[in-house]
């Protein structure tokens, strides 16, 4: 028993020593002050460093801090859907000025919190509002346009006239819009060039919701399978699963097409064969909205962020001039509405 007390005493002393050299308290406590501009972010169920929408949104928040807009930035990862409200309240109670909630799943909790904390600006990423919610700005993106652009590009560049896309689950509307936009874009390019392109689009819907975006091994195998059957351009749309596909494609010498950001920069393994990326610019979108909040120019309701295609980088020389022209035309057409993808916002 003596020994027991000795060990316990040792442990207590150890923890005291550990605590002695602790850093000072965070400045989050100052958020209740008027002059301190604080931005908090609540993730959907998942990790902050998911290399996908949670991370992009957080980088947007960080950008606003770097730009001198926000004084204090902070995030909370959600481990379980039932904590949405609690996690938002953590920031609301601490007097944060802007709370970014990421993902459609938080839509209802965000709307409810907007009523509880009327002075706070909420930015809901991927939260489309059917009716305008006071205090909430929903940041949405025309993913189908981005998918349409790279689909047309892939069809135009393919020599085998077989192209593929490896996506997360089609249950998530943005992913579905990427995939369907890709098909529509390829068909549009075929129409322009008189070719017939076969498009394989595979959604990783055979596993649980928690795994569909985080299975690079599956993405790689699926991409390989498509290439084995002749595909020479692979669009990876869906978090890490897609990244696995793009990397596998690039390694096999096919064209890889990234998603969300310019993945030439984030997937160096695939960079040499990265044709382009279907961009959905969450990071600048979030940063812009935070800045708009501070300026007081922000409005309730839906806000549409930018979607487009990334530069060709290393493959600049491989893309023929007429394809480049075509891409510019399509982009312009999509922006002015003369070209439509025909993809509905939600899977019917």
């Amino acid at each position, binding site marked *: 028993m003596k020994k027991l007390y000795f060990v316990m005493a040792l442990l207590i002393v150890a923890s005291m020593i550990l605590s002695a050299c602790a850093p000072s308290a965070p400045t989050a406590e100052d958020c209740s002050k008027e002059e301190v501009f604080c931005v908090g972010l609540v993730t959907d169920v998942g990790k902050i460093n998911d290399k996908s929408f949670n991370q992009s949104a957080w980088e947007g928040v960080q950008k606003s801090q770097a730009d001198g807009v926000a004084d204090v930035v902070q995030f909370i990862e959600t481990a379980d859907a039932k904590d949405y409200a609690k996690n938002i309240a953590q920031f609301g109670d601490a007097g944060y000025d802007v709370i970014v909630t990421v993902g459609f799943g938080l839509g209802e909790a965000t709307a409810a919190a907007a009523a509880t904390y009327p002075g706070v600006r909420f930015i809901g990423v991927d939260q489309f509002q059917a009716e305008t919610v006071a205090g909430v700005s929903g940041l949405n993106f025309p993913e189908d346009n981005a998918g349409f652009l790279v689909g047309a590009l892939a069809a135009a560049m393919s020599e085998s006239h077989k192209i593929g896309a490896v996506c997360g689950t089609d249950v998530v509307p943005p992913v579905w819009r990427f995939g369907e936009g890709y098909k529509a874009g390829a068909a549009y390019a075929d129409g322009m060039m008189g070719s017939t392109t076969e498009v394989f689009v595979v959604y990783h*819907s055979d596993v649980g919701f928690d795994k569909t975006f985080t299975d*690079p091994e599956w993405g790689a195998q699926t991409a*390989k399978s498509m290439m084995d059957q002749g595909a020479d351009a692979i669009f990876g749309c869906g978090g*890490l699963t897609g990244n696995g596909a793009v990397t596998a494609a690039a390694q096999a010498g096919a064209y890889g097409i990234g998603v969300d950001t310019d993945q030439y920069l984030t997937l160096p393994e695939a960079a040499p064969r990265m044709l382009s990326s279907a961009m959905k610019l969450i990071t600048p979108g979030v940063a812009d909205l935070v800045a708009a909040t501070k300026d007081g120019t922000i409005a309730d309701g839906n806000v549409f962020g930018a979607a487009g295609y990334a530069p060709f980088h290393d493959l600049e020389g491989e893309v023929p001039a007429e394809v480049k022209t075509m891409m510019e035309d399509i982009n312009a057409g999509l922006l002015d509405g003369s070209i439509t993808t025909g993809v509905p916002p939600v899977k019917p």
Partner: protein
Amino acid sequence: MDWKRFGFIALIIIVLFGTVVMIGQVKQPPVLIITSMLATTIAVATPLTLGALSGVFCERAGVVNIGIEGMMLTSAFFGWLGAIYMFHVFGMGIGISITLGVFFAILTGALMALLHAVLSITFKVDQIIGGTVINILAVGLTGFLNRQLFFGAGSVFGGSVPNSPGVLPTIHIPLREIFTPLCGTSTACLVNLTAINRVFDQKPIAIGAILLVFFSHYILFNTRWGLRTRAVGEHPKAADTVGINVAQMRYLNVLIGGMFAGLAGAYFTIESVPSFEPLLTNGRGFISLAAMIFGNWTPIGAWAASLVFGASQALLINMQIFRDVIPPQWSFLQESYIVGLTPYILTMFILTGIIGKTTPPAADGVPYEK
């Protein structure tokens, strides 16, 4: 050899392939479909095979290992981390970094296995609980470190994930080059040859896994080591009475098992894709376990069973690729959630013993007390 079992396995694979060929032939020539599926099957089966071998060595020595999943996950993480450190921090070359990465993964597997061995052999903890501890610990540890090392200010790499030095290269087996003269001028022949060659163009761990299957089978059934390993798993007391150190044999075999799981982990982050994700093993360790049982605790059997799971994954992928040409009467094949159940239902079916009774080693899971 258990021909009934292998016959059944062959039948399942033929049915799975046949289904895809029948549906896909309107779009692709059968040779292309079959070779593509074979390549997928072998690749998908690689980590399962290695995981199952891990189970075979542990359980043949009498230690149940349901912690394969956790061992794979941790190894995948530390192998990848090792490669990154070697490359970025110590500035080593790409080739050396990824080779060392594989080494780190194997080492990690062995260390996790050591934990399992200490728990189950020294402390005689219930082995299934011990495995569960490893699985839970692996999730927490890799998730935590992945966040802490790579994310946020002050983390080791300054908040961004550095690129992995890359993945192991494909080994080209020059079948096409060798057999091209036989084709003469027939282009169809050349196309087929290229397709067939693709099946054999696999990466080092995938090829290694197949070699290891036969090597392990030989070790287990034809060498002193194997005889003693099986003896401590069947009747440890009998082994003890002829002077075999039961605890030592069990420790070493569990460590070997851990190394196999480690190599499986390396497959994910160093051979297949150069990145790590939390939970990236996605339950493949458990499928390995099922493959081991399906294969009746033999390396070759476990490999054959892993191929079944590989083939069912190939079916799934191809059902999506050929989604638009699936005949209406087979439309259920479009529902990937339902088709995705195939491996799980197959596993449960196998476990009923209908295809032939599986017999675990007699002392599997029983701590040895003198």
